[in-house]
């Protein structure tokens, strides 16, 4: 057994996190910053943070992840990292020439209390920021919240530094993308374009973290939300935030700054969340939902109806981030599956409130978020009573193997399978992809483990 020390017996744990279902703020800030065209994320702290975050994102996306670091030494930790950041800004604009540097802090620079506003202002005063270029920043102390919080803070910083209201309002809808795959964003943009809605998506990792291999490396790929798009978000007529934890803050800031009203929705994962997204976009962009999307929806319903018996009543354990777990759990319920164990290391009330509502007809469901809501605890629950399916990041493979349980990878990081940045999980097509993955996993498991005389030619 790989996780041989995990037993069903829970103790009252207060201090020790084991096998976390979360990581720290800065990696989220780095990921979000990659969704700005021509942007180099910058980690203000020790080198190790930047190296770890770049590695984590590289392993997941299998794409170049560029970011720089302030390379703190013991001296900078004592006397402050101002000189390091100033020098970094000069070096980066001279050597790597991005349009934007997006600085985020770390637990180190936060603990010593570096004032980014002051340091960055000094860089401007010293003439280290070339004409037309920009340094933006956000605070991402690793000891507050999680990677989800860091993503949210970076997205809010985009509003703070770029969004500008001019007297000329445009018939455009902002779509603030929560933490999802570039493939998921591409699908959402496709849906909007099928509806002929004019939209701006930010951050936008399409064309950044799914680039083609053609022998020419571009340090700043063609994709990403451009600065002019980001500025223009202030003139849009409405904002849709996709994912409460990762986008609500940006939506509020945009309303306060530029008077753009907003609605926060779930990331459109699954049937109902996609329904809500399309209806909201239709209403606010004042465009109809075309028949072709009815057909996409119908094909999903058809697929589920054809295979309902493989899904009905299946017990599922899942872990990850609230913005994806909420619509995903809702989708499982709409497939008549039983999501029984759900954990997220990311704290926050909305998770508990939404899960209570979604899981009201599944009394045996246990869900937990925040401190010690970790994969060890979830595994202990599984030891108490098993499940039919696991859904979560690569760390689930150890549980899947020990418990011989079918496993579908979803979330971050996925380091051991390709495809997540190709095939969307959003929209009806994405939901269909998901159902196919569930079914394939169940059916493969059945084929491999059932008695010989029970092997079915047709399933």
């Amino acid at each position, binding site marked *: 057994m790989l996780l041989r*020390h995990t037993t069903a017996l829970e103790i009252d*744990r207060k201090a*020790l*996190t084991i096998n976390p279902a979360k990581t720290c703020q800065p990696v989220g800030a780095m990921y979000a910053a990659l969704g700005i065209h021509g942007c180099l994320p910058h980690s203000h702290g020790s080198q190790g943070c930047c190296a770890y975050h770049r*590695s984590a994102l590289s392993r997941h996306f299998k794409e170049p992840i560029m970011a720089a670091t302030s390379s703190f030494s013991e001296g900078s*930790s004592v006397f402050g990292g101002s000189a390091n950041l100033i020098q970094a*800004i000069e070096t980066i604009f001279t050597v790597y020439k991005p349009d934007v540097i997006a600085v985020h802090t770390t*637990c180190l620079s936060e603990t010593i209390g570096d004032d980014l506003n002051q340091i960055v202002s000094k860089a401007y005063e010293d003439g280290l920021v070339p004409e037309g270029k920009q340094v933006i920043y956000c605070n991402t102390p690793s000891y507050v919240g999680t990677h989800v919080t860091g993503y949210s803070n970076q997205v809010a910083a985009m509003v703070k530094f770029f969004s500008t209201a001019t007297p000329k309002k445009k018939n455009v809808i902002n779509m603030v993308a929560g933490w999802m795959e570039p493939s998921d964003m591409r699908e959402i943009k496709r849906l909007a374009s099928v509806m002929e809605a004019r939209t701006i998506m930010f951050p936008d990792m399409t064309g950044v973290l799914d680039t083609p291999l053609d*022998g020419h490396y571009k340090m700043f790929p063609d994709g990403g939300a451009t600065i002019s798009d980001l500025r223009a978000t202030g003139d849009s007529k409405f904002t849709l935030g996709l994912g409460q934890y990762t986008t609500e803050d940006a939506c509020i800031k945009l309303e306060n700054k530029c008077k753009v009203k907003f609605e926060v929705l779930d990331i459109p994962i699954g049937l109902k969340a996609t329904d809500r997204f399309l209806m909201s976009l239709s209403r606010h962009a004042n465009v109809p939902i075309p028949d072709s999307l009815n057909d996409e929806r119908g094909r999903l319903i058809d697929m589920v109806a054809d295979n309902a018996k493989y899904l009905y009543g299946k017990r599922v354990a899942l872990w990850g981030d609230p913005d994806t777990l909420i619509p995903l759990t809702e989708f499982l319920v709409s497939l008549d599956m039983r999501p029984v164990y759900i954990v997220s290391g990311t704290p926050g009330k909305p998770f508990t409130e939404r899960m209570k509502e979604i899981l009201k007809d599944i009394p045996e469901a246990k869900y937990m978020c925040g401190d010690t809501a970790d994969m060890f605890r979830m595994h202990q629950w599984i030891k108490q009573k098993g499940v039919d399916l696991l859904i979560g990041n690569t760390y689930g493979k150890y549980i899947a193997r020990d418990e011989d349980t079918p496993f579908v990878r979803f979330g971050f990081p996925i380091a051991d399978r390709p495809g997540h940045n190709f095939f969307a999980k959003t929209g009806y097509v994405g939901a269909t992809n998901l159902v196919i993955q569930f079914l394939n996993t169940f059916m493969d498991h059945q084929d491999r483990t059932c008695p010989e005389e029970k092997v079915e030619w047709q399933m």
Partner: protein
Amino acid sequence: MDKDIKKEIDLGQFKEEVLAAYPKKVAKKRAKSIVLNDPDAIPQVQANVRTIPGIITQRGCTYAGCKGVVLGPTRDIVNITHGPIGCGFYSWLTRRNQTRPNSPEEENFIPYAFSTDMQDSNIVFGGEEKLKQAIREAYELFHPRGIAIFSTCPVGLIGDDVHRVARQMKEELPGVNIFGFSCEGYRGVSQSAGHHIANNGLFQNLIGRNDTVKGKYKFRVNVLGEYNIGGDAFVIEDLFDKCGIELVSTMSGNSTLEKFETAHTADLSLVMCHRSINYVAEMLETAYGIPWMKSNFIGAEATAKSLRKVGQYFGDQKLIDRIEKVIKEEMIAVKAAADHALPKTKDKLAMLFVGGSRAHHYQELFTELGMRTISAGYEFGHRDDYEGRRVIPTIQIDADSRNIQEITVTKDPTRYAPRKTEEQLNKLEAEGLQFNKYEGLMKDMEKGTLVIDDLSHYEMEKLIELYHPDIFCAGIKEKYVVQKMGIPLKQLHNYDSGGPYAGFEGAVNFYKDIEMIACCSIFKQMKAPWEIEESVEAEYVFN
């Protein structure tokens, strides 16, 4: 292979081009880390100095070197990261240290991540109480024999004393060996500081705690600086068993607490990764009288050479014969694999930028494949890893190195026993063995090749643009950058989930993998046919 490379490829052009792009101060500093090699008159290379802020570096931090590299591979220690969640998360199963418990019951904590998950209140009011509680909970759940604590950046700043906590908890939980490491990420200029801190801790808390002499063979060695990435240590274990050599401890691949505790019962230490473990090798010699030799089990020839050195050291004819027999048997498969790969790999160009030893060791394998390494460098090496240990007395101790504790090791009052007399050592040296010496990477590289320390992203791009290597070796952060340029990248930290690459078996695996890369045809399809086709212009018949 001993041609003067300079005549064919102008590697000198690189430095000029690269430095021109840097701000003046940066250029001045980087200039000292980029040198053209001359194995006969080894030039000085600047190494183990701070990376300039803003430079995109390969390097990581002290915590990564201590927890991730040196202590990570031991399976029966509960390694608790004291800090916010990130550091523990990123070092969770990401280094491919394989481990093989002897039974289904034996302890194995490697698939687990343990963290105190510090919150803002812990930063404000201190995290020592939470750390103590975490240790209690770890004990209640797992009853481990050993618990180690690793400090992350904020821990040092807020003044949490992990060593005091370790002492107190040791009293509270008798029988459990609890020890801490002050390996805050900012302490050094790279992972290297963490290796040193880990080495000190191993010596102070683990090595020498158990005098039991276990094992079936009388020739007893330690292999230091071998972390069992992809199963390398398994191969070395098997190989030593075949030769009749007792592997007392491997530090720290596939290791347990007991391996460290009994390491002082060996009679020779073999140092693989010089950078990460040379301190322990020295301490074992000073305290217990165990000499060390630099060895290398990467590459078939290098493996044979290292085994022969062991035979020669013990001077036992039976052992020497057994080693020769093993080499002869193993070389059959090695030769077959090399013959198969050579037509595909011969004369190809390689560049290696990894680690503190790998950029040296792996050149052996490329040489065996008929390939030429035209540029190499370390991510966190010191001058001695480049120029040889002879330069150690001349290395300037800067503020960053001074931050790392130097522990004073003296002869163990009862257990110090020189394994060889002065005369015996001198005689062995006269016969070609080298003790406590490492000649470094540059002596083994051709004249005119480029040696670059702490390669930056910009320099990497330039190297590839100017010299189009057939294969580039680095790590995960570089992997997809280089491949977008149409050049295959072989990861030498995690082997691209391949390996083992150590020993004879590993050499065969490596030949196959490099042959595969050389033959990988997808890179030939980067352009669509319509992009290659020359445009055909219409001609009018009446012209």
